[in-house]
């Protein structure tokens, strides 16, 4: 097996706030292979977005402490110089955000915002960049791209804005695209279109994608691999099939049980994960999920409260829980 395209090892991100140190990401490791999609799933505050902003080096170094390794195509990104990171962003690694309305500048035209990335990284002329912007808008399925290129974001609909955002992210043919909840702010019908578009573009361009979401349905349709995060750590990892068919971690079960299904009988109640996500300033000792876990008695409450379970096995389908595989299968039925 060759070295993965993106490899994150023991990533730890702490933020220094007035209330204390926030352990946003705590010893996270994962890989993304070329041309594949990794779905990162978890509740708000589980460290999904923080992890990916770290890949782009977008945290303020004065208020955060970052350690571990992030290797992109063999190049170490943690501690890389500012100019290295500026050359990388939007070029080799691009990002699209949750709310395309607030994420696009209201003061500049769509075309301008796309072409400035292109010009910045390729040194193209104004005219070339504009032509490229129109080409990208065509590719992401914006109708009448030649006139819409001069529109402002507020003149676009929500779905079109996210298309424009994708056009902007892909204009320099990045190797890695980080999509941070790209469909959360969109109508359900548009969500599917945007996900299909991402898939098509991935097939055409061979881009690796990290898809951050809290929607397991999105992951099921789009991703190859899944990483389930809880309190800044990976609690389960595996291929989409493995994780969705045979989920092993109680938190993953909770996520799946709280997801509405059209195929389920109407009177089946959704079961939310009880309790609230833990404070990242005072993370529970032992397994961070233990205060919300229904199976602690089975796994051994002492162990769950005192020792932090590690993700195992190291490759393939792994999870961080003291339940035995047999117990997990039994509970999940």
């Amino acid at each position, binding site marked *: 097996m060759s070295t993965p395209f993106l490899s994150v090892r023991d990533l730890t991100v702490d933020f220094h706030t007035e209330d204390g140190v926030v352990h946003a990401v705590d010893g996270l490791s994962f890989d993304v292979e070329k041309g594949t999609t990794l779905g990162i799933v978890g509740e708000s505050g589980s460290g999904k977005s923080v992890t990916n902003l770290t890949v782009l080096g977008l945290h303020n170094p004065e208020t955060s402490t970052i350690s571990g390794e992030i290797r992109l195509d063999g190049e170490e990104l943690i501690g890389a110089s500012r100019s290295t990171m500026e050359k990388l*962003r*939007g070029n080799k690694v691009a990002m699209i955000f949750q709310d395309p309305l607030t994420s696009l500048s209201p*003061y500049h035209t769509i075309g301008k915002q796309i072409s*400035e*990335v292109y010009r910045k990284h390729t040194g193209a002329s104004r005219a070339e960049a504009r032509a490229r912007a129109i080409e990208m808008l065509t590719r992401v399925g914006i109708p009448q791209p030649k006139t819409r290129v001069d*529109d*402002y974001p507020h003149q676009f609909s929500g779905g079109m804005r996210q298309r424009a955002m994708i056009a902007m992210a892909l204009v320099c043919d990045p190797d890695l695209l980080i999509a941070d909840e790209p469909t959360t702010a969109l109508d359900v019908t548009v969500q599917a279109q945007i996900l299909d578009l991402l898939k098509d573009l991935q097939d055409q361009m061979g881009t690796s994608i990290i898809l951050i979401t809290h929607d397991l349905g999105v992951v099921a349709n789009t991703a190859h691999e899944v990483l389930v995060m809880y309190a800044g750590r990976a609690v389960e990892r595996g291929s989409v099939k493995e994780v969705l068919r045979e989920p092993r971690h109680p938190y993953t079960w909770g996520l799946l049980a709280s997801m509405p299904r059209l195929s389920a009988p109407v009177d089946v109640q959704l079961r939310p994960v009880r309790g609230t996500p833990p404070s990242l300033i005072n993370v529970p000792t032992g397994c961070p999920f233990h205060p919300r876990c229904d199976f602690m008695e089975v796994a051994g409450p002492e162990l769950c409260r005192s020792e932090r379970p590690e993700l195992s096995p190291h490759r393939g389908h792994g999870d961080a829980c003291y339940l035995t595989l047999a117990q997990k299968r039994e509970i999940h039925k």
Partner: protein
Amino acid sequence: MASRKDDTPREATAKGPSGPRSGPSHLGKQAMLPFITRRTLGAAVTLLIIAAVTFFLFFAVPADPARLACGKVCPPDLLEQARHNLGLDQPLFAQFVAWLAGIFVGRDYESLGHCPAPCLGYSFVNREPVFETILDRLPVTVSLTIGAAVVFLVFGLATGIVAALRQGKPLDKIASVASLIGASVQIYFIGTLALYFLVYQNQILQRPQYLPFTENPIAWASGLALPWVVLAIIFTANYTRMTRSTMVEQLSEDYVRTARAKGMSGRSVVMRFALRGTLTPIITIFGVDLGTLIGGAIITETTFGLQGLGRLSIKAVWDSDLPLLMGTVLVAAGAIVFFNIVVDVLYAFIDPRVRLS
């Protein structure tokens, strides 16, 4: 009238247009002309109301301009004569209509002859034409305003941006302490100190005076340098704070993060993205401040002995000089109304979302 405050900057609460507006596109420039027309008509109505209120309020005050004009020893027949000369024996409404008509078609006076349009009447006190008097004083106030405005806008923006980028650092703290001090001092205090130390004691600067720009720009600038700086000190603070807080907000906007995520350099993120959104509230308070200052910087003019509109309007109040009072109020109100329209037009240039509505 007397309630008009001059050189005291208000607490800046002005916020620009906010929130997205959706709607059909491409209305941009065609929509501008009707907009300006509509606003100009609205402005005319506003000014008419202000003039009427000022006029009738004047007569609510128990001062009698005729008695003042008549002199210390004033027999009843002379008082009547004075009253007639000033036109105060007419019904109030007729007086107001005559004043209003004078602006558009001019006015004929028994004693002083024809006053061509735009006629604001003759001063009760020295019988000088009010319009000419104001024209004579206006350049002083405009010069004072422009110079000070350039200083406080440039310094306010610069220190505000620096403070926002150095949040919590020494420079930020220095800027906030300095602006607190700047906002707290009074012009007659630092103005007098500056005059004493910089002009009379050490002759570093020349005595403030107004010399027309058209005759000698350098003498114009050096004559007004001290009032500019002193007036700017108290305004700069407001702009620094406003710029800093808006800039801090802008820097945490999603689209600023996007700009960084696509590899824009730090400087271009600040200047092209964050600053753009900062300008809207700044222009809002700038427009109001310019309007207010054109109405007359009473304290500054008094401190530095400049003969501007501010002192003229104070004099009009003291003398119960109705025509002069009406003239100065009209100019002051007109300036505020005018700059408000300018600001609204500028919004559209800064923020494309405004162009639609």
